[in-house]
């Protein structure tokens, strides 16, 4: 039994999109904390 091409596509593109979203999320969080004066 082997991993299918479809499964490989999902985990690879999923991981890259997930990374991109978390990068955007982090930047957004920083802006929010900066606005609220909550950064440290």
């Amino acid at each position, binding site marked *: 039994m082997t991993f299918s091409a479809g499964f490989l596509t999902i985990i690879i593109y999923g991981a890259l999109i997930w990374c991109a979203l978390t990068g955007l999320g*982090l930047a957004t969080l920083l802006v929010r904390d900066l606005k609220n004066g909550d950064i440290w």
Partner: protein
Amino acid sequence: MNEAAAILPPTVGWILLALFSALWVGLGFYWGRRNKSFEDHALAGRNIGLALGSATAAATWITSNTTMLAPQFALELGVWGMLAYTTASFGLFLFAPMAGRIRKLMPTGYTSGDFFRLRYGRTAWSIFMVYTLFYSLTWLVSMAMAGGILLNALSGIPYAWGMTVILGVCVAYTMRGGLAAVIGTDFIQSLIIIVGVVIVGFAVLSHVSVDEIHHNLEATRPALLNVLFPAAIMAIFNNLLFGLGEVFHNNVWWSRAFAFRDGVGGKAFALGGLIWFPIPVAAGFIALASGALNVPVPAADMVGPLVVADVLGEFGAIAIFIVVFCSLASSLDSLLAATSDLITEDIYRKLMRPDAPLETLKKVAQYVTLALGLFTWAVCLPRIGTLASVLFFAGPLVGSMIWPIVTGLYWRRASTVGAVGGMLLGAGVGLVCYFAIGWYVATLIATAVSMVWVLACAHFSKARFDWAKLSEAA
């Protein structure tokens, strides 16, 4: 590796090294101006917000191992190898609720050593200190050594110079800026790593499709697609437990739990886990593409940079250089800061000078950071080779501390006999199995033996711990 075999000209490597070194040291000195006492230096004033907290949890866990070893895991253990590596994020997820509890039970605590001493007494604390210092120093030396080796392989910068510069830069800004500098630079480093991994990943996919990668693997190395790859499945458990043991015990993570603002710790570690979780797949799949792209791979541990440089040329090599440099710095600085705080708080303050003022402790912590840097440099200079096997050797030690910590934080009936016995028995049996069977079962067995002993002792214990004793650490 000589200059001709490197994927980037040494001049470009030196320019990148100088630019980023100046950036980190400059920021460290700037942020260090706020630090007046040991509390400011060691815990950034206990007021870190969610954005910096989440980024530092993820960045510290993204070592050069993540960006370099994930492709190697994929090349040697296939799809399961990448997925096994992602389980290291469970340490961050499971530490999330613990971080909130640590902050609540120990509002004035400084280190994980404080917890062991107050919860289980001096004997358990002594064993913990031996285990954690062995592990932390091994990790520190292996990171610095990896820095020299990787910079040499990527750009031809001589090993001794690369190792010295990256270690010196991290020591300089950690000494001056303390945890605030470490966490601030971690934020920038985590964003650079994430953006770099995404750009490189999509760029590789623009040269070869996933279908082509799959077809090539089916034809040439079908074992890498095997759902029932035994060695890879064993790696899942080893990685998972090693990650849990490391995060649960090490002061790198406890210092952050103390430093995050009240109510932030749980969310920050959970978000850090979510940020880290996809990185091994996003960075690791590149290795699976090496066959479809016809990239020769003379050394498995260099597969990621080789594929990227082959596909993307000098731009890709520069991107990999920056990602690796950021990965190394984000872990080295955290280890330097956390280990220095542990020695300052647990050894200097508690054993030698309990009445030392906080300003003096800050200076001591800075000198300890410098001493750690010099020690690491002296050990790394001869380039004795890889320390990966020594890190695996530490697996049973960290695995044996999981249950004493978890039960000690949540169960009043968790006892000193259980903690001391769990750490000694677990590590002892685990090390015997390390030599008798192999590294891949050592952590698993150490954790299991420790669990049985700790749970049995807790079951029969009549003692009931008073949680208020944990708040006496100030």
